[in-house]
Structure formats: structure tokens, C-alpha cells
């Protein structure tokens, strides 16, 4: 799939991600009142195996939420287990977080990041996609991940909140069909 993207398309996609992630980071920064740093977005195509490997980390929490519209797919948010209390404190939660408060915090964070990423992204491409409510995701509880795809486009960016030890990654995964829609929209932008 990497080869499917021309240099210009890749550049454009990367820049779009940059911009929407910048918006997401700003949203998070405003909410927690601390500076958020961003990694350079990574755009890769992945196979189900590579995807499954990504879900092996025991030091993180995962959330997932799907989006529907012109483009369809799922947003996976990966949140570090360390630093949750300090970010909870920044977000006006009572710390130490109990079980319920922790999952509420994780879902709220995931929703903010994923929402800002996706809306920034789709607005620039003049596409629409509506996110469903996020849920916590425990990959280890899934015996086998049933996949109906051979390869997907994955866009990933890392957020770090400097005031705490917290970091998080947002991974946007597109359905096969959505990749075509995305490429068309990119081309319109590049004309």
C-alpha cells in the first residue's frame, strides 16, 4: 500500500495529519492546561499480523471507536498506564483514580484525541465521518482477532503531556474501500 501513495500524496496526507493532530494537541492542551508535544505522523500500510503485534503491549490501555460516513474505519487510542493519575488531576478528577474513574478518564481522553484528529482530518478533505462512543478494548481477551481485511492504511501519531509522564498514540485505521475515497479526496486537494 505504501507504493500506492505517490510522493505528493504521502506529503499531503502527512501534512493533513500534522494539522489535525495539531488541533487535537491543542484541544488536549486546553483541557489539561499543559503543553502537549507531538511526534511526526507515521503513515504505513499494515497487515493483520503487524496490527495484532501492535496490541501486545501490557503497559498501555486501549480504546476503540468506529467512524462512519464518507470514509469508514476505526480509531484506536493507546494510552500509557503511567501518568494516568497526574493527568486525571489536571482534568479535575479525584485522585487516586478508582476503577470507574480511570475508565471514564481514559474514554474521555481517547474521545477528545480521536475526535479532534478525525474531524480535523475530514474537514480538510471535505469528507464527513461521525465517531461513535469509544469503549475500552482488551485485546488479550480476544482469542483470535477475526479480520476481514488484507491490509489497511494506518496513520499514527504520538502525544506526550510534558507535565506528567503520560503519553498516548492515536491510530486511525481505514477500511479498504475508504482508502480509495481518501486518495480521491487527496488528489482533489493536490490539483
Amino acid at each position, binding site marked *: 500500500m505504501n507504493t500506492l501513495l505517490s510522493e505528493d500524496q504521502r506529503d499531503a496526507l502527512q*501534512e493533513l495529519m500534522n*494539522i489535525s493532530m*495539531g488541533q487535537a494537541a491543542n484541544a488536549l*492542551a486546553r483541557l489539561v492546561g499543559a503543553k502537549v508535544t507531538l511526534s511526526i505522523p507515521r503513515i504505513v500500510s499494515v497487515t493483520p499480523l503487524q496490527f495484532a503485534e501492535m496490541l501486545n503491549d501490557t503497559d498501555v490501555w486501549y480504546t476503540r471507536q468506529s467512524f462512519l460516513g464518507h470514509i469508514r474505519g476505526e480509531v484506536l487510542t493507546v494510552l500509557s498506564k503511567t501518568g494516568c493519575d497526574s493527568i486525571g488531576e489536571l482534568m479535575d478528577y479525584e485522585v487516586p483514580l478508582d476503577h470507574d474513574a480511570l475508565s471514564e478518564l481514559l474514554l474521555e481522553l481517547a474521545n477528545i484525541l480521536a475526535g479532534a484528529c478525525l474531524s480535523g482530518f475530514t474537514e*480538510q478533505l471535505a469528507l464527513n465521518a461521525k465517531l461513535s462512543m469509544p469503549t475500552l478494548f482488551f485485546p488479550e481477551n480476544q482469542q483470535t482477532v477475526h479480520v476481514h481485511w488484507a491490509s489497511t492504511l494506518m496513520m499514527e501519531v504520538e502525544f506526550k503531556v510534558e507535565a506528567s509522564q503520560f503519553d498516548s498514540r492515536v491510530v486511525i485505521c481505514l477500511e479498504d474501500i475508504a482508502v480509495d475515497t481518501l486518495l480521491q479526496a487527496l488528489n482533489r486537494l493536490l490539483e
Partner: protein
Amino acid sequence: MPIPVTIADDSLMSRKAVKRALPPEWDVDITEACNGKEALLAVESGKAEVLFLDLTMPELDGFGVLKYLHEHHAKTIVIVISADIQPEAKRLVDSLGAFRFLHKPLQAEQLRETLFEVGLI
């Protein structure tokens, strides 16, 4: 005589977006730079009376460019166009003497407004 303008951004698409957003009636001579070093080179060779500057770039980032210009070429009009829109970035950019801090994605009307304020159009 056209005004020398440099657009510094590592993304081709963003440079295109800036070009597209420039008012068509504005008579400019455009130079493109892919990183901070190229941007400074353009300034040094007089090709950047106005500099549209991205912040995250390879080689030398936008903050580095701003710092250099702040010390050596205070006359250059710098308009930062950034994806990093956190208050902290804006504060830093302002302190380094940039004229404006515009958010990506760039809105053509906003750019026109800014150019008008500077008295360029």
C-alpha cells in the same frame, strides 16, 4: 516591481496551499524553501521581504529561523503558518518578533486580512 516573497514549508501541499491563498492581484515574486536553512538563504539573497514560515521543518525549524532573523534581519516581515497551534507556540513566536501567527489549514480570507493589516495590499 514585484515584492520578493518566500514560502518556507517542508510540505509541498502546504506551499501550494499558501500560493493558492495569496490574493491574485498581489504582484509577488515567489521563492519556495523546504527547510529553515533554505529559508535563511532566501532571506540573505534578498528574496524574502515577506516570509511565510512553517514551524516544524527539518534542518532548521521555524523557531530557529525566527531567532536568527530577530537578531540579524529585523526588517523581514514573518507570517508564521503553523499546525502547532498551542498557546505556548504562539507565545514563543510572538516573543521572537513574528508579525502574525496563522493556523493551518490556512484560510484565504484570513491571509488577505493579515496582508492588508501589514499594508502589503
